[in-house]
């Protein structure tokens, strides 16, 4: 396993720019792992950026706190894995995480498609409380 940037070193405010920083992190990850096929990169990047965006949009800060986000990435011979930490956020009930939890949004809806799409892109999608916040785990086989 090679881990890039443990979370303590890259905690940032959960704002729109966090999404762009996530793209930049992945650019560096793909440079370091040229063997991951483009199709796999695209699917993992789509899922991960969606989760970071979800944190930016929906994570609610605990009393007196602000939400910070940090992304941990791991690549091994078979799997791509990301852990997205949302520090300072309260734990939320997220119906879209359950397969039958939410109906498909109407065609004219402008939101509500993200997590369903993530579920179809990764083999593991988990959301759990941790000390100081929550963590999302995404995992996808790439080889």
């Amino acid at each position: 396993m090679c881990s890039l940037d443990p979370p303590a070193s890259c905690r940032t405010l959960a704002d729109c720019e966090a999404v762009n920083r996530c793209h930049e992190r992945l650019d560096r990850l793909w440079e370091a792992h040229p063997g991951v096929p483009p199709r796999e990169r695209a699917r993992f990047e789509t899922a991960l950026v969606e989760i970071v965006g979800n944190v930016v949009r929906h994570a609610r800060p605990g009393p007196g706190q602000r939400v910070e986000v940090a992304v941990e990435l791991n690549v091994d011979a078979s799997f791509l894995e990301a852990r997205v930490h949302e520090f300072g956020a309260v734990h939320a009930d997220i119906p879209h995480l359950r397969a039958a939890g939410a109906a498909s949004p109407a065609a004219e809806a402008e939101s509500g498609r993200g997590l369903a799409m993530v579920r179809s892109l990764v083999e593991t999608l988990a959301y759990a409380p941790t000390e100081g916040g929550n963590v999302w785990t995404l995992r996808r086989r790439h080889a």
Partner: protein
Amino acid sequence: MRFTTSTRGDLVEIAAAGKLNMASASELRRVVAEAAAPGGARIVVNLAGTEFMDSSGLGALVGCLKTARGAGGDLRIANVQEQVRMVLELTNMDRIFTPYPSVETAYDGV
């Protein structure tokens, strides 16, 4: 993300280059609202340079479609790249946004 608006005959082309995500989605909404404002505009969003789109970007496109139709016009997309096509298919939104192979053909037969 960079948006460039130009007029091609009776079409308004908006070329979108970069990543259409949460950070750039509101700018697309603004650019399309401006293009749709005169009324009746036939807009084509040229996605040839759009290497990435997330659900925020897709949501913005839906909003833009409503804006364009609300102003008596329409909005279509052309030159969709692989990742954007994947997002459209996974969300079943390829039924709402038919990806046309070029700006010029986006309104063919209409």
